[in-house]
């Protein structure tokens, strides 16, 4: 076999393998969607009767609405707080040169490597020692301990490509610290802020180990799904699972479209200026 032919063969093998891995990744999600359209109370495959009856039941159910509302409130607050804190955190991580930077970089990433279940239990202990009753408010705090470092990491990737000369130029032209932040730093970092925000929202929305120990009497969607999974099958699980999956897909699509529009607008502006 010539060298070229063997290179072509290995290239083809790698492509086929990659497609297999992608199928492997999406197979369980397809399974959940299939199961959500089955009419039977107990799951059997092949599915005998297809129906959307469980979607109607989920829409009508008050407890489902409450679950979604709790998960949504937590995720929105986590996103807001994390993005604001991580914006400055990422500047300190990647943009500024300062004395404690190397140490800060390592310490701030530690929570990502920490087993989430243990972190959740430690926070449960912490809250009860401080006399704080756990509810969805404490879950916001708990989620942030793990999500904030991830958002800092994501925004840092953007902040590394930041040219400090831009800020300095603005200072030299007489801009105040606040003006520089608003009109130079913020726009440059905006792609990182948006992707950091998406990650914060969806990681909080889907989190289970931290919620399990920090929500107290309140319940999030992943917690409810888990409690139903271990206590026996109910068709509401794939239904609610499919609903949250389509919610996540919708959000990713919306962000992508916004990004496309923004890019097109920026390009148009660039053209009209030049």
């Amino acid at each position, binding site marked *: 076999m010539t060298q070229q032919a063997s290179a072509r063969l290995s290239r083809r093998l790698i492509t086929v393998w990659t497609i297999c891995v992608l199928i492997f990744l999406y197979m369980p999600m397809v*399974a959940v969607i299939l199961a959500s359209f089955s009419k039977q109370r107990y799951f059997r*495959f092949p599915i005998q009767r297809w129906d959307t009856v469980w979607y109607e039941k989920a829409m009508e159910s008050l407890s489902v609405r409450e679950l979604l509302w709790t998960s949504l409130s937590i995720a929105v607050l986590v996103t807001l707080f994390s993005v604001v804190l991580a914006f400055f955190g990422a500047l300190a991580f990647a943009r500024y*040169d300062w004395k404690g930077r190397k140490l800060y970089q390592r310490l701030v990433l530690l929570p990502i490597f920490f087993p989430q*279940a243990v972190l959740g239990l430690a926070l449960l202990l*912490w809250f009860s020692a401080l006399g704080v009753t756990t509810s969805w408010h404490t879950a916001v705090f708990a989620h942030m301990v793990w999500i904030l470092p991830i958002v800092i990491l994501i925004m840092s990737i953007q902040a590394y490509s930041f040219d400090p000369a831009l800020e300095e130029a603005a200072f030299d032209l007489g801009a105040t610290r606040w003006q520089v932040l608003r009109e130079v730093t913020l726009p440059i970092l905006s792609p990182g802020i948006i992707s950091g925000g998406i990650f914060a929202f969806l990681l909080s929305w*889907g989190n289970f180990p931290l919620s399990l120990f920090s929500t107290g009497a309140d319940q999030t969607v992943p917690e409810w799904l888990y409690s139903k999974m271990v206590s026996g099958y109910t068709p509401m699980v794939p239904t609610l699972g499919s609903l949250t999956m389509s919610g996540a897909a919708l959000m990713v699509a919306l962000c992508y479209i916004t990004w496309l529009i923004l890019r097109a607008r920026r390009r148009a502006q660039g053209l009209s200026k030049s």
Partner: protein
Amino acid sequence: MSTASPGDRQRWYRSPGLLAAAPAAIFLLIGFAGPLLMVIGFSFMPPKSFSLAEPPTLANYQSVISASYYISLLWSLWLATCTVIILFVVCYPVAYGMAKLFGKWANLVTVLIAIPLLISENIRLFGWLLLLLQNGILDGSLRSLIGVEMHGLLYTFPAIVLGTVYVYLPFMLFPLVIGISMIPDTLKEAASDMGASRWQVFWEVELPLSMPGIMIGGILTFILSLGSMAESKILGGQAIITIVDDIESAFTFAQNWPKGSVLSVLLIALSGLIVFMLFRRVDLDRIIGRR
């Protein structure tokens, strides 16, 4: 910083790193360092106590070491080892393709692999439950197509490994992509021009040069699967008891905070040691961004 001369203030303008780091750092001190120190503190308290004011003792460490907790720790370590080895074998070709072969398609593959990360782990594991269940999707389709029965797939150790491999795949893949893309193509060409076989190029050029990525991916997935909980709960049933299961039952059912703290400290120390070794060898600035 109470004696801020005008010169100092000028410097604050130019290097406000500490100022920018402060909010996140203070939050993590309260939300991460605080609970961590408290767990360490509780590990030295007498068994079953709920306050930190007792005289410190090593009784919990002794009882944990003499009891059979090493079994669950060994199971967790074995689970993590299996996961990392399988993930490396599965991910290396894909990462190689993404870094060197796919060109513009690599972006699409990246997005497709990242999207499942945004969907709750529980839902995806539930999908595997449906696939592996008796009368589930695998069992049911095999029976109706070729008449083979597939029982007993669920609630076994391999099912848990499948779960951890599945959930942590991106955490191995993305570091590998970064690692492999750091290999200059010219080195490989030079090696094959000098007569190295494909295998030799892989073994003596590609593998050593992509080591930083392999290390990060391996250690990240090792630690994540060491501390995993949902996989063994959902797909494993009672097949094995992991160290995290032990920690959880000590804190919740048994209400023995000091014992749970000792087990947590052992797990944290183990993962911490591994992360520490990683951070000593890897330059974050170089991996994430500039320089």
